[in-house]
């Protein structure tokens, strides 16, 4: 009986070791490191296996998009402030309120279109498979932006 128990224990240790090693080696270490560091550019590079040229092109796209992003951001803020001020004003009419709401909604829609177009341009720089996977990850989140958390990553190109 003691040999049975010892053998069961040995098999369990063997299986545990195999499971642990499989867990540790189950993903690309570079991707894991980028994810652990919350380094978005490193993640893009490793997870989508970008070549140097692809990475440089996407970095350039991010650089140029950050200017556009800044403009959209400012326009939304101005519109939201105007809407808030109008809502706080007792004499504000419903037509005026509806108009500013429409303005904010239109800006948000324009933003959604702009960011979707931006990620599509980024995807176009990747290999077809990587681009599809990238779009599959980001496009649903763009459409569902209210669920996005506060940015807490190192996206060094973006200087908002």
């Amino acid at each position, binding site marked *: 009986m003691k040999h049975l128990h010892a053998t069961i224990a040995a098999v369990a240790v*063997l*299986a545990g070791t195999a499971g642990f090693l499989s867990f540790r080696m189950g993903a690309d270490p570079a991707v894991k490191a980028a994810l652990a560091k919350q380094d978005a550019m490193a993640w893009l590079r490793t997870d989508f296996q970008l070549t140097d040229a692809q990475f440089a092109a996407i970095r350039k796209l991010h650089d140029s998009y950050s200017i556009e992003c800044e403009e959209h951001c400012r326009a*939304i803020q101005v519109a939201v402030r105007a809407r808030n001020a109008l809502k706080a004003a007792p004499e504000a009419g419903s037509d005026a309120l509806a108009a500013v709401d429409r303005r904010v909604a239109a800006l948000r829609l324009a*933003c959604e279109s702009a960011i979707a177009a931006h990620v599509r341009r980024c995807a176009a720089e990747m290999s077809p498979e990587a681009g599809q996977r990238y779009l599959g990850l980001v496009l649903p989140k763009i459409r569902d932006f209210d669920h996005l958390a506060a940015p807490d990553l190192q996206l060094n190109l973006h200087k908002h």
Partner: protein
Amino acid sequence: MNTSDPNDPLSRTLAAWRVAPPPDPNFRAAAWRRIARANRDTWAAYLRAHVAGWSAAAALAVVAASWAGHAAAQAKLDADRERMVVSYLGAIDPRVMAKLRP
């Protein structure tokens, strides 16, 4: 106490005592049987005796554990990737930035 005194009756009795046991014809076979049983009682011998069963069990356990480890690694990677996508988009989405700015 000196027990080797030749005048001591006990010493003389013991010196004269001879044991002549009847020969056991099965002694050698019994000894080998005991040796074989002792050999079988080691873990290595147990494993040798059940090598097929335990090999299959060990292979099955290793495969299952490896699959589970790989699945867990993928699940963790997917969760980390999901968080990364959210953070990534949060940093390039003007709507999020506009919300966050005072």
